[in-house]
């Protein structure tokens, strides 16, 4: 029977040995690099179109007017209705009454938006119809309902992570540029190109979001549910190590 084995060995020689192996190898390599990674994400749109351009360039607001540090050093990431209402001066009660008068169910958003309620329309700030509609959406669905906007956070981190913006405030892009090689797997090297802005937001957040008009879709991982831009722990650790910062669990976990 040992002899039988020998024959089989020969057989394998005859049909070219490693070729099938190589074919299989290359095939999956290509798949694994080019195709498969993309299949792990689905695109989810933001609640409505928020344009940074309009607010920054149009209204000349600066980042701090919405994104600022509180006195206790915590960071106010997304603005609250309270903040927005300073400009979008629609009086919720007035609007609600008007809606009631118009005989529309307060939860039937589309109807409300179609009805072009004066109390709302008169206070719209935008010019173009598209922007008007976006603003209308915000006011009808959230502001007058007293609901905060459920923004999708591109940098979403779970409850067990404690991220301190304050601690990272001092990071200087120009400085970091020196170690952009080491950081290449953590920070998109495009960030380091050109004149470095005084804020370092680009390091982790959407690059130049302040110049963005239509927020990009939120790419959600189908397994973990996290954002594609969510920084994985190893990235945090890499940068901490490079900057000589501690990597103990409790540095970032709660």
């Amino acid at each position, binding site marked *: 029977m040992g002899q039988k084995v020998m024959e089989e060995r020969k057989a394998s020689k005859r049909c070219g*040995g490693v070729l099938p192996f*190589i*074919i299989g190898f*290359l095939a*999956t*390599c290509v798949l*694994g*690099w080019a195709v498969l990674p993309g299949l*792990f994400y689905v695109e989810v749109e933001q609640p409505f179109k928020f344009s940074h351009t309009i607010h920054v360039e149009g209204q000349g607001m600066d980042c701090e007017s919405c994104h600022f540090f509180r006195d206790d050093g915590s960071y106010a990431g997304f603005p609250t209705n309270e903040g927005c209402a300073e400009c979008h001066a629609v009086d919720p009660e007035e609007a609600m009454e008007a809606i009631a008068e118009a005989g529309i169910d307060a939860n039937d958003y589309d109807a409300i938006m179609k009805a072009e309620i004066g109390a709302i329309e008169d206070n719209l700030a935008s010019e173009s119809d598209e922007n008007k509609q976006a603003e209308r959406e915000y006011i009808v669905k959230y502001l007058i309902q007293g609901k905060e906007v459920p923004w999708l956070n591109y940098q979403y981190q779970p409850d067990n992570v404690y991220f301190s913006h304050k601690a990272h405030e001092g990071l200087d892009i120009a400085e970091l540029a020196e170690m952009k090689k080491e950081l290449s797997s953590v920070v998109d090297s495009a960030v380091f190109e050109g004149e470095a802005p005084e804020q370092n937001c680009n390091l982790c957040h959407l690059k130049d979001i302040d110049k963005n008009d239509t927020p990009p879709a939120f790419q959600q991982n189908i*397994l973990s549910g996290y954002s594609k831009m969510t920084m994985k722990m190893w990235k945090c650790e890499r940068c901490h190590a490079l900057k000589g910062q501690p990597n103990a669990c409790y540095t970032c976990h709660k």
Partner: protein
Amino acid sequence: MSVARRAFIQMSVGATVGILFTPTVWTALDDVSIWTQNWPWIPSLKYGEVKGVPTVSKMCESGCAVKVRTVAGEAFGTEGNMDNPLSGGGICPLCANGVQVMNSPTRIKAPMLNGKEISWDDANKLVSEKLAAAGSKVAVISGDQTGTVNEVFSGLLASQGSDAFYSMPSDMQAADKAWTGLMGGSGQIGYDMENADVVLLAGADALESWGPTVANMKAFANNENGKFIFAGPMQTRTASVTSKWVPVPAEGMAAFTLGITYYVLQAGKSVPAADFDQFKAMVISGYTPAKVEAATGVKADAMAEIAKQLLAADNPVVVPGGSVAANGAAFALNLLLGGAMKVLPEFGKAVETAMTRSEMLKQDILKGVSADVLMVYEANPFYALPEQVKGAFTVAFDSVETETTAAADLVLPTPHAYERADDLATPYGVASATYSLGVPVSKPTLNVMNAADFVLGLADLGFENFDEVLEAKVTAVGADMDELAEGAAYVLEESADVSGVTLAASVLGKAAVPVKGTGAVALAPYTLLNVGTANQATTPNAPCTISNNQLIGDNMVVMMASATAKKLGVGVGSKVKLSGGNGDCEALVQVFEGVLPGVVAAPLGMGHTVGDEFSKGKGDNVYKILTVSSEAAAGASTWAGSTVNVAKI
């Protein structure tokens, strides 16, 4: 074996190796490891600005000055209020759970008439009719000892021509009956435990349940060199930190105090009171240490020792707990010692027609209440005093379901303390008159109304709503609304006039004689805040703080010294039935040597039949077995001296 199959195998092997050279597998594994952390049914947290909003909590009897912690406007926790002398940073275990109670499913969601939901307007009409019909046969029972809401209720009573304002039995009431009743004093008694050098807690479990507990504990903590002595039938939590525990039966507390007074008088102390000589004669003849020892079992030299310390002290104070007589005796002793007992003036009223606090404390609820219309405000008499309280038509104001709301005809939900404006005026026992204001922290989510607002809708007391009443009160107090709203308390360092105060010699002489029931063993009921009070059941997070000395499983635990257990023929874990008063209780026996032999100690506040799963059916209700005996001489009723029979089951 065919070539095709072999080739296929080789290709698959190649494919497998290949995929391992791409990030796919590894990132996927990483995502999977994150997936194992995502449990859809585990609630996620809310983020935003974190604040501490000062207000008052009325869950414990004296009320706590607290800061409610909120995140993005949502209340989540309670902490102490450093700026308020009532707290100094600490709070009691009940108030610590305030937010959880506020969000509890046992909150009453809307006005209910005999179990059916009705509108506030209908409730208003209904009650107005009932009041009109009842005329002066209206009574109010209030569970709030310190709120101006009482003035509104008493204003309503006045407009009905009734004076039937009842408060739940409390040390404050006993003290007032002794001070303004027997001794003809005015104002309210307070104790400066923080600056006293010797503090004799004569029956006052001051560091656990008596009086302004948190303020007492703060005083205890700040009083570095003061010597605290606890006298009482059991080694309470208070006794575990005082430098000495003097075992004294509850009914013997007055005699014990007079026994000490004897030595103080012998030492030549006196006061310019009209009946001083009579008092002295009474004590010297009737309460010689020998007699007291015979009557109470407290060794004469023990009293001599305490007297010595009190006399040696610069600023001693005796803090009474229990019967009116015990309070009277202690006040007399304090006057003789001239120490850290304070007499605080009462703040001005907001509602002219309302009674003073002292007047509100006059009615004796233990003697029984019966009225055509009975209004119960955040009190639970149908749990603590089921025998005594009757109402043809009962209106219960409360924020959570209790035995009382269950028994009431009309239930009117009040906002939780953190959802309403409220105030807290000089809780009994604090060293100086103190006024704190509570502002609403959260918006009410249920169909509730502040009881005072409802009452103001029934009778014209010259106020639109309770906020106006509070403004008037603040003005009457002479405080600054804004400062109060920021959490600072208004403190008045004046003290009331004590000239013309007598020592109630004639009454005390008789009232101090120990009167004991006929049961086999004396009953020492005690209160632990985490277990609950007469009005407030234990809270969601508190049960795991309740020791096996109070509750095992669903069984109440009563404690007694091994000697007592031996005498009763019971041991650790034996199930017993305690019968006394007009009822009986079931309990497990725990041997605890910190109980006076011949006494069984039982925790109050358990055995609820209505409420959430944290209190309902847990333990048994000791109020059922308390005996109401009348202090004939003092013209008051007391639970002190209750006895029970213990039967093994």
